[in-house]
């Protein structure tokens, strides 16, 4: 579908209205001519909210595909040195819900070496089939080799949807395979739904702003998406798994690569806030590094980890491993206390699933209160010291 300008309806006033209505500054009016520039994001606001009929949506002939030829939902098993990343299980949980709607099966694709035990673990999460590509040259992630394997898998099995964890591996592999099949990919989905026609409804924050977009892939298969760790829930394990294991043959020509691994070093185990049960998150309302001591003191009393928003990390006040949100970590703790956080979606999409959200901000209109369970309309510089004081009193009274 394309946007068409009916130039005979344009006058200066109408042109000005349209120029103003476009949130992306994509409509221009020069020399009595209205035009749409490359900034157009096809949000269609000019069609829906602009002067009627001036800009209209023109349907174009689209090649349609037979969606019935593409069946089942596949999870890419995120495996590093035979350890399955738990996001894999969370995706299995989601895929089982999605598959029920359309009566598809849930399949897992595992690529690696000596995968028998690893695959056994995956089977316990109740999937229908696990496809294994096992070879010594597949022991470590190699994007060229893995993409070739994926190509073979898709050509032979024609899956409808493929879900990846948004890990460093998933974010490299998913776009590579999606581009090879010239199909759509939606990164970092925060919700997934299934239509009866097998279109995967992918929801994520969009346009860098405080809005969500619902995205579909109506004329392409397979449908690709990634989702982060701690967004979905892993299913209960089954005691007697019934899933089938399918060993897939590998051709040498798939194993060519331009990357030669020299060394693999284990990272020092560092505190990972996505594993914490209690988090205190610092926003721009906490003004200076000295003030952080106050927050650290409260964190110690509550046995909490420290998180922060992007501006705090970008200002160098905290290391970016503390950063929560779209460009940081996704967390799902039992409790998160936000201090001086305004609540841009960039941040909230990384923590909104916390079991209990306590927000402290002196601006009652702050967006963080839209998702908070407990909204504290107050000054952090007054409340935090007071809270520290009474927690300490309580402890010394015991």
């Amino acid at each position, binding site marked *: *579908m*394309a946007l068409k300008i009916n130039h005979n309806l344009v006058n200066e006033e109408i042109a000005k209205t349209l120029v103003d*209505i476009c*949130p992306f*500054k*994509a409509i221009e009016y020069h020399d009595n001519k209205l035009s749409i*520039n*490359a*900034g157009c*994001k*096809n949000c269609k606001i000019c069609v829906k909210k602009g002067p009627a009929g001036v800009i209209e949506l023109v349907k174009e002939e689209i090649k349609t595909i037979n969606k019935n030829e593409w069946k089942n939902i596949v999870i890419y098993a995120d495996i590093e040195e035979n*350890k399955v990343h738990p996001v894999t299980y969370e995706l299995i949980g989601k895929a089982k819900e999605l598959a029920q709607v359309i009566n598809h099966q849930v399949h897992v694709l595992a690529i690696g070496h000596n995968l028998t035990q690893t695959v056994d673990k995956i089977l316990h999460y109740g999937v229908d089939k696990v496809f294994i590509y096992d070879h010594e040259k597949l022991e470590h992630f190699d994007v060229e080799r893995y993409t070739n394997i994926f190509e073979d898998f898709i050509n032979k099995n024609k899956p409808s949807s493929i879900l990846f964890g948004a890990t*460093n*591996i998933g*974010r490299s592999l998913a*776009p*590579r395979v*999606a*581009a090879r099949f*010239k*199909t*759509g*990919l939606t*990164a*970092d989905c925060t919700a997934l739904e299934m239509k009866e026609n097998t279109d995967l409804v*992918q929801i994520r*924050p969009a*346009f*860098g*702003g*405080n*809005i969500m977009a*619902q*995205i*579909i*892939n109506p004329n*392409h298969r397979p449908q690709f998406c990634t989702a982060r760790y701690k967004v979905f829930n892993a299913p209960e394990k089954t005691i007697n798994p019934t899933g089938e294991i399918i060993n897939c043959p590998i051709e040498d020509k798939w194993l060519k690569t*331009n*990357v*030669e*691994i*020299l060394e*693999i*070093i*284990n990272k020092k185990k560092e505190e990972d806030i996505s594993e914490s049960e209690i988090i205190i998150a610092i926003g721009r309302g906490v003004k200076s590094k000295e003030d952080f001591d106050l927050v650290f003191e409260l964190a110690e009393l509550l046995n909490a980890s420290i998180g922060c928003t992007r501006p705090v990390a*970008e200002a160098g006040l905290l290391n970016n491993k503390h950063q929560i949100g779209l460009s940081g970590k996704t967390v799902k703790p039992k*409790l998160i206390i936000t201090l001086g956080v305004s609540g841009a979606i960039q941040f909230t999409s990384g923590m909104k699933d916390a079991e209990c959200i306590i927000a402290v901000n002196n601006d009652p209109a702050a967006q963080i*209160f*839209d*998702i908070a*369970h407990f*909204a*504290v309309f*107050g000054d952090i510089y007054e*409340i935090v010291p*007071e*809270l520290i*004081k*009474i927690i300490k009193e*309580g402890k010394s009274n015991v």
Partner: protein
Amino acid sequence: MNIIVCIKQVPGTSNVKVDPITGVLIRDGVQAKMNPYDLYALETSLQLKEKTNGKVTVISMGPPAALSILKEAIYMGADEGILISDRKFGGADVLATAYTISQAINTIDDVDLILTGKQTTDGDTGQVGPETAEFLNLPHFGYVTNVEVKENKIEFISNLETKIMKANITLPCLLCIDSDINTPRLPSYKRKVKFGNCEKQIKIMSFNDMEDQDETKYGLKGSATQVEKIFQPEKTTDRLVLQGTKEQMAKDLLNVLKERKFI
């Protein structure tokens, strides 16, 4: 060494709201800027340029306003800039964007290395780099924290989930540079005076300059994904407001923490 760096203009803030009555997107007037993650890729390229006596070309796809970030890159030290801009490229998703960028890069001779940032701050997907590599049929690697040129290959370090990998990759290739790995230099005033509007350094590429003249592969037509609707995220309905004196609020807060057994 002939290096290309892909950069993008992003909104200055993330303050975009939907007007609850009209449903129209409201963006505040804060100026657009270069995606901050691209600065690390640009700095990496400038350091390599100095070491190898190379050349850096910055490429950006976007509306004419994106010229400003190409100029900024040239003031920082890049030699040339290309703005990929055409109404036909509008509304592109990851697939169409990556294809368009790959087509533009295809018109440049003897490319050795392509660098991108790890993601943008507006889309936050980090997927255009790897897709571009696939369309160019080049190897790529992500989350790269260190780059050393060794004859016809590059030795790099990549930050994986639980491991750090040191490896060689043959040239030409595409690398997505991790954030915080260097201190990006500031634009130089001297270069700004010298190059001014950069008319000689920057060229604009439109659809007609592309090798593949099939319009259905670009912009909205070339996009596989469609935005069905946009909406404001839901609000919590059962929230409890604590207000009053600081003593009252702190006491209420403590009770909440105790009730829920956090203390």
